[in-house]
Each structure stands twice: as structure tokens, then as C-alpha cells.
């Protein structure tokens, strides 16, 4: 959150912005990310190419989109790891609707999974508000419930055969390049969708009242109640938002794989949470930025890609990512500890 809203001239504003940036953990993550990219590119030149970059981005769209929703819920001190199951349900329903029925209007195709996702997310929030049980328990329960339900309903059947526009859309390149072998690559529409979601979320979080309430709720729930913030409504918004975003992510993922499988998405929950936390969000709520989350997603994806290119066995990928997470959390925790120590204290007058 760059709060450079000072009224003292341009230079003061600039200086304060710079100071503010230096204090954010996202800044350090950016530096480390750039170092990592440079190092990996030096070792394997095929890593540092634009084509590789676009590939990494495109293959991270599902987790990238969902992570933004996870961030919103995490900021208000909630957790919802059932979003992969929500996405599966939304995706499967959409697939059932349009496979074999090319005439279905595009608007409906987009709207259905988003609304289903939103509904399931809101339901989680309602349960949380009503039962007042820790959020993690509710999400684990709902994760299993939704996942189990879709397994039963689908009979494990994978769906194929999407309409022509559905096949074409993700391959539209808004910025094109051609590589040495004559294959085209570039900025895919899905990447644009991801960043659009990121931008809208960022605006909501920074500039709207609801966004402020989400941060406030995560910072001090008791104070939030005293200030008249409707805690239940704010939570329903956050969880519903995550659900809706999971729906969007589900569409994107279906477009990439051109199939809807009941068991493809569940299991990736912690990739999203890891990315959000790596990006500097506080695990107990109250802090985090969209930029940090995107950076976290790209960091993990790039790291995995780099390790693959280097020939490191995929079992080790988890180790490296876990390592990166631990370091990130240590750094954040140490900085918070130092900040607390430097505050207050006794002023010794001589």
C-alpha cells in the first residue's frame, strides 16, 4: 500500500514514496527475483528468453488468478483453501453446459462459473459467520464436500469437445513474436485476463470502502466491530470474491487444457497460499498487496521452470520452494520484530 497522499509538494511526495518503497518487503522480493532470473539465465541461456517468460506466465494463469482471490481473503484474516474444489465445480458445470452445444451465448458461459464460484464462496462465509468455528476447519470441510460431490456427480468422467471459439480464444496473441523454429509466441489473452483481474482487485483494495474494511477487519476485528464495520458482510464479500475469481481461473484453466476433469485442480491450494505469503502478505491478516502476490506466483513458477531447465528432479522442486518460503517468512518476521523494537523505548535526556 503506497500511501503517498501528502500535501507537501512534488519532491516531498517523491521522497516519501521512495522511503515507503524501501520499507516494503515486495521491494526486496523484486530484487531477489531479478537476481534469481539473472543467475538462472547465465547458467542456462534458454531460461532467460522472452518466449520462456511468456510460457511461464501462461502456465501460471490458474494459480495466478486464484492467488489474487486468496490474497483478498487472507487480508481480512480469513482462510479459504476450498477454492480449488469450488473452481472444479464451476468448471465442470460450465463444461456440461457448452460441450456439444456451440450455440450457447458467450456471456452465459463466462457468467455461470463465476456465479457458481461466488455462491459457493459466500456459502463458506455464511457457515463461518454462523458457526464461528475457525475458518480453516470450514474450508477443509467444504473442500472435501465440494470435491466429493463433484466426483460422485461426474463419475470421474473427463469432459472434452469445447466449442470452436473456446479453443481459439486462449491462443489469440495480442503481441506476437516468432522464434527460430518459426513458431509464434507472445502475450496470450489469458495473461491479459489475469492482469485485468489483478488490476481490478488492486483498485478495489486500495480505493474503495470495502477494500479498506477488508484490511481493517484483518488488522483488528474488535475495533472493526466498534467502528461499525459489518464484519459478516465484509467476510461474505471477501469469500464470495475469491469464489468468483476461482470461477474465472477455472475458465482460464479449461481453456489451456481444453478439458474439464474433476480431479485436476484440487491439490494446488497451497501453491496459491505459498505465493501469497511469499509475496509479503501477513499470514494472520491485515497486510499484503496484489503486486506482491503476482510476484510470488511468478517467482515460484520461474523457480520451478529454472530447476526443470537445469535438470533438477521434480521432487526437489518442493524442497526449493519450501526453502524460499521459510526464508521469506523469516525475513518478514525479523523486520516486524525490529520495527517493534525501534518503536517506543525510553528517551534518555542528558
Amino acid at each position: 500500500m503506497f500511501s503517498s497522499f501528502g500535501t507537501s509538494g512534488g519532491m516531498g511526495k517523491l521522497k516519501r514514496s521512495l522511503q515507503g518503497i524501501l520499507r516494503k518487503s515486495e521491494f526486496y522480493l523484486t530484487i531477489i527475483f531479478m537476481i534469481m532470473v539473472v543467475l538462472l539465465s547465465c547458467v542456462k541461456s534458454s531460461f532467460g528468453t522472452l518466449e520462456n517468460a511468456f510460457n511461464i506466465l501462461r502456465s501460471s494463469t490458474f494459480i495466478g488468478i486464484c492467488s489474487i482471490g486468496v490474497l483478498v481473503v487472507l487480508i481480512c484474516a480469513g482462510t479459504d483453501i476450498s477454492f480449488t474444489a469450488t473452481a472444479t465445480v464451476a468448471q465442470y458445470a460450465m463444461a456440461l453446459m457448452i460441450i456439444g452445444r456451440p450455440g450457447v451465448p458467450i456471456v452465459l458461459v463466462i457468467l455461470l462459473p463465476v456465479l457458481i464460484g461466488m455462491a459457493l464462496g459466500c456459502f463458506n462465509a455464511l457457515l463461518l459467520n454462523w458457526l464461528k468455528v475457525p475458518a480453516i476447519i470450514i474450508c477443509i470441510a467444504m473442500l472435501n464436500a465440494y470435491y466429493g460431490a463433484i466426483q460422485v456427480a461426474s463419475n470421474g468422467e473427463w469432459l472434452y469437445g469445447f466449442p470452436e471459439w473456446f479453443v481459439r480464444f486462449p491462443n489469440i496473441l495480442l503481441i506476437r513474436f516468432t522464434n527460430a523454429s518459426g513458431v509464434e509466441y507472445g502475450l496470450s489473452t489469458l495473461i491479459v485476463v489475469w492482469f485485468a483481474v489483478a488490476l481490478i482487485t488492486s483498485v478495489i483494495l486500495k480505493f474503495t470502502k470495502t477494500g479498506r474494511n477488508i484490511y481493517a477487519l484483518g488488522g483488528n476485528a474488535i475495533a472493526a466491530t466498534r467502528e461499525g464495520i459489518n464484519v459478516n458482510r465484509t467476510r461474505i464479500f471477501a469469500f464470495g470474491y475469491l469464489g468468483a475469481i476461482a470461477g474465472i481461473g477455472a475458465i482460464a484453466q479449461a481453456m489451456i487444457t481444453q478439458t474439464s476433469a474433476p480431479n485436476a485442480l484440487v491439490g494446488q491450494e497451497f501453491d496459491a497460499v505459498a505465493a501469497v505469503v511469499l509475496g509479503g502478505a501477513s499470514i494472520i491478516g491485515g497486510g499484503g498487496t496484489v503486486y506482491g502476490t503476482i510476484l510470488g506466483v511468478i517467482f515460484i513458477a520461474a523457480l520451478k521452470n529454472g530447476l526443470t531447465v537445469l535438470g533438477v528432479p521434480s521432487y526437489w522442486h518442493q524442497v526449493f520452494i519450501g526453502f524460499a518460503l521459510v526464508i521469506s517468512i523469516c525475513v518478514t518476521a525479523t523486520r516486524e520484530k525490529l520495527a517493534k523494537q525501534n518503536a517506543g523505548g525510553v528517551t534518555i535526556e542528558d
Partner: protein
Amino acid sequence: MEHKAVELRNVSKVYPGVRALDKVDFEVGRGEVHCLVGQNGCGKSTMIKIISGVEQPEPESEIYIDGALMKHLNAEISMAKGVQVIYQDLSLFPNLTVMENIAYRATMGQKSPFIHWSLGAKIAKEALDMVGVDIDLHSTVGALSIAQQQLVEIAKALTGELSLLILDEPTASLTRKEVNALFMVIKELKEKGISTLFVSHKLNEVFEIAERVTVMRDGKKIGVYQPAELNRDKLVYLMTGSKEMYALPAPIADDAEIIVEARKLSKARNYKDISFTLRKGEILGITGLLGSGRTELALTLFGMNPQDSGDLYIEGEKVILNSNQKALKAGIGYVPEDRLTCGLVLNQSIRDNMTISTMRDYLSTLRLIDEKKRDEALENKVKELDIKIVSADAAVKTLSGGNAQKVVLSKWLLVHPKVLILDEPTIGIDVIAKNSIHTLIKSLAEEQGMSIIMISDEVAEVENNCHRIIVMSNGKVVCEFTPGEISEDELLARYNLA
């Protein structure tokens, strides 16, 4: 005729098993600074909750705000009517900036879903200026000191509709300078016709700022008085029904062995050049305002805050205390200021809490815990300190403040320390238990030869229970005297003491 800011008639509040308020009549005039005093549990907090609409009183109660009878009162209506409460635990968002916190209500009240931060910044700056404090609007509230946070909270209250400002123990963490600033603000509010209801247990502040004082005890209003008709003793008597007892400790021999010697202890941002001696059987009082470095010094003596420079000698031998284990081994014990979080494990039993530091004394031959030995130790201490318990298995959180503190003391006495540091030993404890603890402390020094350091911000407490007193201010020792050498008024004037 001008309406009263708030008036309560025949207000009662019953919680299961206890009558928190019993047919109380209460009023605060327009533009009046009114103080509400009483012991813990007298009903002060309940009354505030009812005025602010957080709790609902019994049906026969009547609440009038600005002359109008409030048939239904909740937090929103109360706030809309201009009643703002600043709670002791503060209602700030530590992850947002000062400006965002202060301007929160103002920006939330706008119609558009988007926030106008420029307006927010203006409002926040005006409010901070009114409080007269210089805090960077863009700093995160979580990084501020408690004192600064409190002032931010007050600035926040000033941004809304304000006719009655209720402050619940606001000065607990403020230095003298900040308390003065706060009183100036209250006086300015008074000029504007805003009333202040000030709840405090710091009696000297009550005398300083109040126009009228309402005393409560056990849920009943005892009376309303002018400060001029009260003095400290009378006020304590009204609040508690008992008198504080004073008896100076027995004198010690001039050549009594020096147990603790501190030479030029210094620690950046904590304290500087602290030197003192403590003899066997002596009670040394340390007083000074909050923020003077007293607790930091105490924690250094207990090994939890090692000094940057300077030496510490216990019984003539130099010691390096860099952990509380080392301090314990050196024979030092520490009764913390915050007994609830640092002195006791609230959900555990009285027996467990009392014997926790001396477990290895209760082992049987097989190295298992011998419950009989534990019970013996427990019973001895319960008798010695006159602790009122129903069952040793009950959780310690069921005990009253005074009895809980006695459990903490027992825990440390079982360790048989040579030096016992007491940090605010009678804070939040009723007068009878207070007297009991003071008598105990004095007998420990006299009969067992224990050397005691008593830290308190009540000058009366150290003057009546210590052999010598040192005054700390801004991290340094500014004065050392024996009780009676300097009058309380002179201390107040010289060092701005409570």
C-alpha cells in the same frame, strides 16, 4: 435550561450471578469534566458500556442523552448522538496508517464507494493538530508507542460528532508531558461545550482535572463530590470502605551486608548510568513515571534485558546476567507488573501455578512428582500469606486480583530468593489485600533478611513501605532519599511525579 450531556436514572444491570449496577442515578453536565472512580469491579466499565450502547440495561432503567429519553440505545445510535468512548485497549487498526485510522469514520461516511483520501488527510491533520501532537500521518499505527496510539485514538474521536467524550483509564501509559497535553485538550473541548467523562484510578489526576467526582462501590453510586471536599484518604475510604494502613519498615543496621551493587548500568534507549546499592533486609523503592526506564532496569536485574555497559555485583561477586535462568541461580526473583500475562498461567490450577518454579523440590526417589510434597508447600504458603482459595485445583483465573498476586508471590517465595524485585506489586488490588501484601513484604525483609526492590508509580506506596527511595526520570536516577526527607508536594513539583 441546558440539558445534561447524559443522565442515567434508576439504571441497573444484572449479569448471571452478579448485580453489576444497582439502581444507579448518574449525570454529566454540558461541558463538564466529570470523573468516575471506584475499585475494579465496582461497575464503572458496565456503566460506560450502557451509556455507549454496547450493553442493554434492565427494563426499568432510563437513559437520557442531551435531554432526550433513549428508548433503544445501541452503539450506532449512541455514536450518532455524539457519545464517543476511548477504550483502554484502543480501537485502532495496527496495520493501517495514522491518517487512515483517524479519518476512518469520516471517509466511510461518504456516499461513493471510492475513498477520497485528500479529504481524509485534511481531516486527520486537523484532528492531530487539535490534540497538539506531532506524529507522522503516514506511519503505521502498529509501529507507534502505546502513548502515541492513545493520542491517535483521541484525535480519531475528535473527527466525529462529539458531545460526550468517555475516556476509560486513558493515562495508564502516558508520560507527564502527554498527560498534560491530554488535559489541555479536555479543557479545550470544555470550551466548545463538549463534556468529558474520565474514568481513572489515578487519584491525583482526578483531583487535577475533575469538576465533580462520582464514586462507585459494588455497583452502587456512593455519592457525587467536589474535589475540594475530598482528599486522598477520604476518597480511598469512599471507594473501598477501608483505610490504607501505613507502618514504616523496621530499620536495618548501618553495616548490613551489601547484597546487590549496580555500577553505572547503561543500555541504549532504556536507561543510563544507574548505580545503587541494596543491603540485606533492605527495601529499596524505585519510583518515577511510566517511560522512565524502571521496568527496563528491573528486567536487566532479572537477566532478561542485559545491559550494554556497567557491572552488577551480587554478594560482592560480579555477575553477568544474560538470562533469567542465570538470575534465578544468582538468587534473584521477579514479580512482574502484568501478572495476568507474565506472572500466571490463567487456565492452570492454583497448585500448578504456585509450584511451577520449584518442581524439582517435589520429586520422589523415582524422579516422579510427589503430590504430597507439593500440597505441603502449597498449604504452607496459603496459610502464611492468607490466600483465600476454595480448592487448590481451581484455575487461578477464578481468584481475585489480590489473591492471584499472592499466588505469584508464593511462587517466588518458594524459590527462596536473596533478592526479590516487585514491579507494581499492588496494581489493581483492593485496599485490604494491598495492606496484607505490604505487611508481608515488610516481614520478609525483617524476618527473613530478604532484600527487596519495590517499583511503584504511587509515591505514597514507596514512601510508606521502603527504607530508601530512588526516583527515575527519562532513564536516569535523578534523586535518592529516605521517606520523610522530601514532601510529596515537593516531589511532584520537582519531578512531575504522580
